[in-house]
């Protein structure tokens, strides 16, 4: 049975614009509306997590000052902050938000291939968030088991939220995975099946490559979290012993027999490590496009960048146990996972070199998106280098329980991706709204966030080297190896964190204010080559492309081509004498 590609059947589909408010903005199947819905919910729940981090820092910086932060509250804040930031904010925002918005526009499609399922994906995601939030109001409050939810303590009395809080968390994760699977199927299938004519895989912008590969990783890795969530829920509710060992709890023998907590750790990290790259790969892709556009240079080593994304994606499945060195394992396993961890640094380093070479001697415009993109490179290199320390068993063992790890993962998968999120919002906001974000406010936002986050996390490395343990509610003065300087550093970090959190309000204000008062952007304010800037309307209307789909003739990085009349040639411009079909360093067409 032969089928015609969806792009070629375009004329069969009349564009029925939704008319009612509900069909247009709420129960909408338009990928752009769904993207904004995802983004709003993700940012809203992310603000909750930000507030929790402020409360944590208040406790650490000024212990014995805030009576309303009890030890159990502190652990609940840790848990919810970590889970929300990693899953409900970053994953949802990069794939549900940017994935939804960019894939059809950058590939030249009218929409996702399964729009109804796409809409369901958002609503199920919202349900997952609501169940998570409901967990904050159940008896005992949310779980305080730490974001890794390790058994046996996660479901034993004594841990905050061990009765209902953990159930809400597990249920919410399971629901989230259902939502993500519906979305992920859409992203992958759309990239494979709904590209416009001429958009070969090797002409796709790197943003699409990053989101596409991250979606595949998510589809294969999230089932591990699903399996562990289901089995732990059964341990808690039914009394099975998948993960729960035969332990005594509160002086009494528990009902559990000989379950394996290590099994949970394997399953969790089999999801958990690819999750790092589910967040990082879209960031890698997006930052490549930001750098190229704002430096007016073609991306350096496009094909190598694609290979690096794929290599990182594959390798991310064979490094998970480096999170478990201190759980105990066969030394040969440790050697294997340390080796794979170091190997994954190779394609990652290739990407960093290529980013730097892209802007090297480029016509760099220090716009706000470019500032965030450059800030990302610095932060990612810093966070990545400390990852090399922790990837080695012998170095990880003494550092694993300290603030060095907190500093590392916040730099590499907290601050770095968030800088890209900000850069991407500043970059694509004009396309989404037709107005520019205010540049002065944007620069204030960037410098305060960039310097502020370094003020927070650089000292944490020092704390870690000193051996200051993480996960502690307070540090008693009687702990001999913790000198008074640690308390002063903690105060400094807290004040910096309060400052950075407050500065984010400038960003939110800018988002809202510019919606009405921002400078009109026009169709292509950054003079970019990719297809989303070539739509007939800004913001793009339902169906994106008017009557006819675009046709692509070149790759996405034709910047500063010598003979061309402008310093960029959009992907949909046919080749002629003045706009040749593109060139790369040293390779003439």
């Amino acid at each position: 049975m032969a089928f015609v590609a969806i792009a070629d059947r375009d004329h069969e589909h009349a564009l029925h614009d939704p008319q009612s408010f509900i069909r247009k903005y709420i129960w909408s199947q338009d990928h752009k509306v769904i993207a904004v819905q995802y983004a709003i919910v993700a940012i809203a729940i992310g603000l909750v997590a930000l507030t929790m981090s402020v409360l944590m820092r208040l406790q650490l910086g000024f212990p014995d000052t805030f009576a309303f932060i009890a030890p159990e509250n502190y652990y609940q804040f840790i848990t919810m902050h970590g889970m929300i930031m990693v899953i409900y904010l970053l994953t949802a925002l990069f794939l549900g938000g940017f994935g939804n918005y960019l894939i059809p526009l950058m590939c030249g499609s009218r929409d996702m291939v399964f729009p109804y399922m796409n809409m369901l994906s958002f609503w199920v995601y919202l349900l997952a968030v609501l169940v998570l939030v409901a967990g904050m109001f159940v008896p005992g409050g949310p779980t305080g088991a730490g974001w890794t939810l390790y058994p046996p303590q996660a479901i034993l009395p004594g841990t905050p939220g061990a009765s209902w809080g953990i159930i809400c968390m597990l249920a919410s994760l399971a629901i989230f995975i259902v939502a993500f699977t519906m979305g992920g199927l859409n992203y992958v299938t759309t990239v494979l099946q709904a590209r416009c004519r001429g958009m070969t895989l090797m002409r796709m912008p790197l943003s699409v490559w990053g989101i596409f590969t991250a979606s595949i990783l998510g589809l294969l890795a999230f089932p591990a979290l699903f399996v562990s969530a289901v089995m732990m829920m059964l341990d808690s509710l039914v009394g099975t012993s998948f993960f729960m060992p035969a332990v005594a709890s509160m002086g009494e023998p528990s009902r559990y027999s000989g379950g394996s907590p290590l099994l949970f750790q394997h399953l969790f990290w089999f999801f958990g490590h690819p999750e790092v790259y589910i967040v990082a790969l879209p960031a890698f892709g997006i930052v490549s496009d930001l750098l190229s556009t704002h430096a007016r240079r073609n991306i350096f080593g496009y094909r190598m960048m694609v290979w690096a994304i794929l290599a990182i994606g594959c390798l991310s499945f064979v490094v998970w146990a480096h999170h478990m060195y201190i759980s105990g394992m066969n030394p040969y396993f440790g050697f294997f996972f340390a080796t794979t961890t170091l190997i994954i640094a190779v394609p990652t380093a290739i990407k960093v070199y290529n980013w730097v070479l892209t802007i090297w001697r480029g016509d760099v415009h220090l716009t706000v998106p470019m500032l965030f993109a450059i800030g990302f490179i610095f932060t990612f290199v810093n966070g990545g280098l400390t990852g090399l320390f922790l990837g080695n068993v012998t170095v990880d063992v003494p550092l694993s329980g300290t603030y060095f790890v907190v500093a590392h993962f916040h730099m590499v998968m907290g601050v770095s991706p968030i800088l890209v999120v900000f850069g991407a919002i500043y970059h694509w906001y004009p396309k989404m709204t037709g107005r520019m974000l205010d540049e002065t406010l944007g620069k204030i936002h960037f410098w305060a966030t960039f310097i502020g986050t370094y003020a927070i996390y650089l000292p944490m490395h020092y704390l870690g080297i000193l051996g200051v343990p993480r996960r502690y509610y307070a540090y008693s003065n009687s702990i001999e190896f913790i000198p008074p300087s640690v308390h002063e550093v903690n105060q400094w970090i807290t004040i910096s964190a309060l400052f950075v959190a407050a500065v984010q309000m400038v960003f939110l204000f800018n988002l809202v204010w510019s919606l009405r008062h921002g400078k009109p952007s026009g169709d292509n304010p950054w003079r970019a080559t990719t297809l989303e800037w070539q739509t007939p309307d800004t913001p793009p209307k339902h169906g994106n492309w008017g009557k006819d789909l675009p046709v692509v003739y070149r790759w996405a990085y034709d910047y500063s081509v010598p003979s061309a009349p402008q310093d960029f040639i959009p992907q949909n411009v046919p080749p002629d004498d003045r706009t040749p079909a593109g060139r790369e360093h040293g390779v003439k067409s």
Partner: protein
Amino acid sequence: MSATAAYIALATGILVWALLVRRFTAKPWEAVLERGIGDDLPNSAPARVGLWVFLAVVTSLFALFMSAYYMRMGHGHGAVHDWSTLAEPAVLWVNSLLLILASASMQWSRANITRGQIARARDGLLIGGLFTIAFLGGQLYAWREVRGLDAFTPGNPAVAFFYVLTAVHGLHLLGGLFVWAKTLIRISPRRPEPIDVRLSIELCTVYWHYLLFVWIGLFALLIAT
């Protein structure tokens, strides 16, 4: 876990090779297009590709459950070894036969819809679904049987895994039955054959074959351990 890692590596390798590597020789920045610009367009229905991607996800899910099964079975020695092998109910053999018949009926339906014999295709689809419902009923009966066994206790991981694995497999079949019911409503001998019904039957058939394959794997695991 090693089985899962092997599966992931294999699946990723196949995906990369089949979809990507053969197109990596393209150098779109070098050559002016001489071929038609539509040469690289995909030529399969999105729903078909979507199903195969979904099957990869389901494979990952079951591979992880099976890895967990093996790891849990090997966990603990001496006093804490709590795995008490289960004598699987004989009805599972009958159930397996029912699912094979369901899959065969679906295949028969697919063959008929390809030849344009809509009435037969409808019958095959209907019978396939009924066999599947019978399979699910049989699984419920097996659940009751296991409940009556001496080894039945939630603390026995063999029992817990039996219920979890059969439940997850059954839920996937229930999802398939939802699509089956929608297809059955759409197909009618009095109406001309719409192309999407033909596609629906094809995809249902692939899905049924796949879940039969998964069940055979699960059943073999259960009776072998």
